[in-house]
């Protein structure tokens, strides 16, 4: 009691508890940041343990409550279609239009409304200004030639007693030029379901079957159809019709239906993309679910749940989701899994109600699935044609049924069609039961297995822990840089603070503005770097490696120019008033910028932010000038130097990419061009990850390097 009062008698300023807490955190920021970071990484590793079993949240769905109605009759009809399609493919003279006409004939025989939709392939041009804009209707259609168009066939069943406000979409992509057996089978499955649905009485929503012509890619075809559905262009209609190259001659009766142009049904409730792959090495049929759409958006978890439930409990299919296969053989992961398992056993022996242990094998599988789930969400590229639907807020997934089917084994093919058809029928029936749109279950989740998921509330913890240390460290750095010198002065001359001195203090307290300016300049440079590939793409005949090298050179060049133009006044000030703590201020501002950037990114694409935080947070926190470390020759300092260098190496996006590629895919055939290709695919899909890399990650890395090499 005596000490505190003698220290400063006048202000018995009892600070607010929150301020005191903040000061406590800042003063212990080193310890806390280490604890937070390790806790964040540990939580990430623990996530497979925390995964919950999926459950069907919307009661109206009632999957599997009705017996499947699909019978062998529909299957035999579908078999006819499959046979006709494969025969068509064998014929040499069969043009692309033949198969569409055949499918349309089959559809209209069922009593469905049939229409064709013509579309032109769109080159994936990089439009720097169209990044976040919605799909543009006023697309420029250059060099349309008669031969180069795709033709989607669309069949619509109107629900007999429905009001036509909602629709369920079935998509079967197939290549009209070369129809494989798998594609023919996927059409067969869709056709069997479609023919059943024309007869059923329970239908409440219209059914749209889109047979997408994947001549120019599956996504492009589905996207073209959706664009016509949602953003039709009226002004070009007449011209388009006028230059019909070779018209589609149909029978008298079907012609009238087909000519009426684009057919529509109501708001889409859900969409299912059906694909069949022929995998001869497998013995049992399995089903892969792809759900990731652009920028890590996921469909409602209920949609995956229905498919999972019906496939596992009704049709006996094995469900798979994408995994990082190389992680399955990881030694350290296995050891970690075993440790966790034994911990779980120990906890269980202490209290039988504590059940958090899972078998080590499950843990490894869960981790592999989680890693791939994170990676594909972070990439921001849709994993199939379903991604096009998510752009219009329609829940969609791709079901890839892989089976060992050969055309000569009729019984097996029938069985396959029956099972696949019943699965699709069940899903459609569930969605048909739905009165409202999908809203009950999660939209933000990561899958650790087809029947286990992590909701946003759980996986956020890891990110929050990682990121939490950033503002603390930034604040403590700032406080140190500002407080230390004035503190000395204050101790020397207690009350008589002259006017000039005060001015000096205020000037010094605004010192961070210089650092902020530097950070801003570097971030601006990041934006410039982002735009450079647009110009590099214009260079003809450029291999990925050379473009990458050109890009790096141009980036360095622009960085130098920017520093020369904008950075010079800063160096002036620096020279006139050598400041010991300048690097600390710079680091503090860098860390704050990284924090803001990561938090923003976590809103747009959480997985990117999570992976970015894993790479960036340790790098930002560790950054320390090499000179200072080298000066004081201690083991601790040298280890810090080593850490700094390693983190800076792994933090650079190209090296990070290449290192991960080496680890997961092996060393053969690695070149820097791969990074360029990867980046190109990211911007072609206008993924936010591209922006993140250019605007947040790269500038932060540059600034960290700057701090490390700071001449103090």
């Amino acid at each position: 009691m005596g000490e505190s009062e003698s220290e400063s008698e006048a202000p018995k300023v009892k600070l607010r508890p929150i301020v005191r807490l903040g000061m406590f955190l800042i003063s212990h920021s080193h310890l806390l940041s280490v604890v937070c970071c390790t806790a964040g990484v540990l939580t990430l590793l623990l996530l497979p343990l925390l995964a919950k079993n999926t459950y069907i949240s919307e009661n109206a769905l009632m999957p599997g409550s009705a017996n499947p109605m699909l019978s062998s009759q529909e299957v035999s009809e579908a078999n006819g279609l499959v046979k006709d399609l494969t025969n068509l493919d064998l014929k040499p003279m069969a043009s692309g239009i033949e198969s569409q006409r055949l499918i349309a004939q089959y559809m209209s025989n069922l009593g469905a409304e049939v229409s064709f939709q013509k579309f032109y392939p769109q080159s994936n041009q990089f439009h720097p200004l169209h990044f976040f804009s919605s799909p543009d209707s006023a697309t420029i259609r250059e060099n349309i030639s008669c031969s180069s168009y795709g033709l989607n066939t669309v069949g619509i069943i109107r629900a007999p007693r429905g009001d036509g406000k909602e629709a369920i979409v079935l998509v079967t992509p197939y290549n009209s030029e070369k129809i494989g057996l798998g594609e023919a089978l996927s059409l067969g499955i869709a056709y069997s379901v479609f023919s059943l649905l024309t007869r059923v009485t329970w239908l409440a929503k219209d059914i749209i079957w889109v047979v997408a012509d994947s001549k120019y890619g599956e996504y492009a075809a589905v996207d073209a159809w959706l664009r016509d559905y949602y953003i039709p262009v009226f002004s070009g209609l007449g011209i388009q019709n006028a230059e019909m190259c070779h018209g589609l001659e149909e029978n008298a009766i079907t012609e009238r239906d087909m000519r009426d142009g684009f057919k529509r049904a109501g708001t889409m409730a859900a969409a299912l993309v059906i694909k069949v792959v022929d995998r001869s090495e497998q013995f049992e049929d399995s089903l892969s679910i792809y759900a990731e759409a652009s920028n890590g958006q996921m469909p409602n978890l209920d949609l995956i749940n229905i498919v999972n439930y019906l496939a596992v409990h009704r049709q006996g299919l094995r469900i798979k989701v994408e995994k990082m296969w190389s992680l399955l053989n990881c030694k350290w992961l296995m050891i970690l899994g075993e440790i966790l398992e034994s911990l779980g056993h120990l906890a269980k022996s202490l209290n039988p109600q504590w059940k958090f242990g899972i078998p080590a094998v499950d843990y490894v599988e869960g981790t592999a699935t989680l890693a791939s789930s994170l990676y594909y969400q972070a990439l921001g590229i849709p994993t199939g044609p379903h991604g096009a639907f998510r752009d219009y807020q329609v829940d969609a997934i791709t079901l890839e049924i892989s089976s060992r089917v050969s055309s000569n084994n009729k019984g097996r093919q029938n069985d396959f069609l029956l099972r696949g058809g019943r699965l699709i029928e069940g899903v459609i029936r569930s969605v048909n039961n739905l009165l409202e749109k999908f809203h009950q279950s999660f939209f933000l989740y990561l899958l650790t297995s087809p029947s286990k998921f992590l909701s946003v509330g759980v996986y956020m913890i890891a990110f929050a822990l990682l990121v939490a240390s950033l503002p603390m460290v930034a604040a403590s750095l700032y406080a140190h840089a500002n407080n230390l010198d004035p503190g000395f002065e204050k101790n020397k001359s207690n009350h008589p603070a002259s006017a000039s001195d005060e001015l000096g203090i205020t000037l010094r307290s605004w010192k961070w503005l210089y650092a902020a300016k530097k950070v801003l300049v570097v971030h601006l440079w990041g934006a410039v770097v982002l735009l450079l590939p647009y110009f590099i793409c214009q260079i003809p005949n450029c291999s990925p490696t050379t473009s990458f090298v050109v890009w790096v050179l141009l980036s360095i060049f622009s960085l130098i120019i920017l520093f020369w133009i904008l950075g010079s006044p800063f160096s002036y000030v620096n020279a006139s008033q050598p400041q010991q703590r300048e690097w600390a201020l710079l680091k503090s501002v860098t860390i704050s910028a990284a924090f803001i950037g990561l938090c923003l990114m976590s809103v747009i694409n959480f997985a990117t932010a999570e992976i970015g935080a894993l790479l960036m947070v340790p790098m930002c926190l560790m950054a320390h000038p090499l000179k200072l470390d080298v000066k004081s020759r201690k083991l601790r300092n040298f280890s810090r130097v080593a850490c700094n260098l390693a983190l800076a190496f792994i933090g650079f996006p190209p090296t990070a990419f290449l290192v991960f590629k080496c680890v997961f895919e092996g060393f053969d055939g690695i070149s820097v061009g791969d990074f360029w290709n990867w980046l190109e695919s990211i911007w072609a899909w206008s993924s936010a990850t591209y922006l993140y890399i250019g605007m947040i990650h790269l500038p932060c890395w540059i600034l960290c390097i700057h701090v490390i090499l700071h001449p103090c």
Partner: protein
Amino acid sequence: MAHLPRRTHSILLILSFQICFSTIFAVFGSVFFQEEFSEELLLKPLPDRKVLAHFHFETTAPPLSTSHGRHHHLFPKAIAQLVQKFHVKEMELSFTQGRWNYDRWGGFDPISSSNAKPPGVELWAVFDVPKDQVDASWKNLTHTLSGLFCASINFLESSTTYSAHEWGFHPSSGGLRYGTLPREAVCTENLTPWLKLLPCRDKAGLSALLDRPSIYRGFYHSQRLHLTSSESHSSGVESGIVLEQALTVVLQPNSHKTSKTFLSETKLQPSWSLSSIFGRKVTGRCVLAKSSNVYLQLERGLVTELENLQKDNAITGPDHIGSGGLKDNPGFELSVRPDKEFKEANILHRKSSSVLYEYSIERYSAFEPFDLGLTWKFPVVWLCPRAPLHSSRFLMGSGNQRGTIAISFISTDLEEGFLGANIGEDSCKLQANIFQVVPWYIKVYYHTLRVFVDGKPQAIANVVEKMHVSPSEDKVSPGVMELVLKFPCAVKSAALTLEFDKGFLHIDEYPPDANQGFDIPSAVIIFPNFQTSMQYLEDNSSNKSPMLLKFQEKSPVLSYTEILLVPLTTPDFSMPYNVITITCTVFALYFGSLLNVLRRRVGEEERILKNRASKKAGRLPQLLSRLSAKLKGKEWEPPKSPSTSSSFISSKLILKVLIVAGVAVFWQYYSE
């Protein structure tokens, strides 16, 4: 009073025996304003293998002045009271399930333009009251009807759901109100009260055919109630109240698994009979009905096809029962020989005219039930007459913020006969009226109206001839748009777009199942230049049935567009709980700290502290104050704050906690 029903009865008896006398008596009857009831059923095969059944019941009541006060013999009293109380001049109420397929079931005949209705409930009424009382009358009417028909028509009472319009939908002089409930589910509970209005209910006569499971199994089901009264003081002619009840169903006859055959050449239309589509037979007429007839209509296209078929195979057996012009038609066979055959008076259409077979069911009874059957013998494919433009409406754009309503018209390749002689002229214009009501939460920007004709954007003034817009007012009234468009006759396709913003609703304005989205009711498209009227040539034109008279009326071709579903931003309805918890926490924190600040007097506290320091009071308070001082001082100088006592205390505390935890674990381990 007592002798009146007997007279009606006798008239009906005479009617059944002597037709020539009946006309005289009918005239006689109409002079004395009797209540009359007639029942009719029209059957029509549709091109897409379905059958249309259209029941038409008409009840008339004489004007109040000439009848027996408030007493009625046949006319439902509930309706009569409703007319008298609310001064309803004209009213139409329809309950519909399913969508009318304008392409396949026709869009250019009296049935489609007056009986095809949008899904859900549609109600419009013209009142004969001063303008300021119209809304009150409407409110009362909706409540009454909602009670009468077991439906939630009372939701139409609020001003956000109904609209008054000028001229777009129905020509009237201001007293008209129009409202629809697209989401209303229609079922037997609505049909039963509707049937109760019939004098024979569904116990006898044609209405006995209405077997609930079979009519609700159909593809389209619309029950309609149309009311006209001219009890008004203003109009000179008084014809009393005419209540017209119509039920239109489209049914699928049970085909014998013909779906296996794919090629359309072998596609025979399914044969049907009354008992196969309704599961019942007509066991006699309703004895109270003045006339009770069943008609079978063959469409123009079908007749043409049949005539072609007849020409093709000229050698046909003489045993075909078909009569009239298609006496020996090879296409189909009727199980019952029709009593009469009418041919459409065909002035405009040169090709061929539709044919109507009449069956009077007065001679049928329970022992000899009437069961009309139609058996197809040759596959016939024909097209139904369609409206000049096929109209459809859809939403464009995605997201929760804004969107676009688009109405598109596509020409249906009219036969040249429709447009008649003026096809060659340049000034030929095709007129289409659009009447559209949009709820207020869809904020339509009417200035964004854009018109495209044949793929080219057009100036509004070139196409829109007349326009009346009353913008929506939030939570008060819906937006109404009435347009008169004039397209060139050679138009292939046309489109209209209107942009809108999606509004926010208050939490208690959300309906149940709000996540489904919100409905925009159907727009009405009217082609006033095209009249649907079917005039049938008859031998005695004086004795026309009410339904055929109705068909003769010239009414413009009218079609309804689709209902649209707009997803609006919907809150998470479990959110209020979260919000309440969070706000309560925030408020508690806020008020706590505020009270803390307000209560504190800094000077006073300092004084007390000083006093305490000087006093050196008892041991415990001193310890406490020392502790608090330490906590306070700790942050100020971190290097020197940790005093021995505090660290000692904390380590002791940690030790204690550890011991307790260890005991607990030990206990847990050994207790098992």
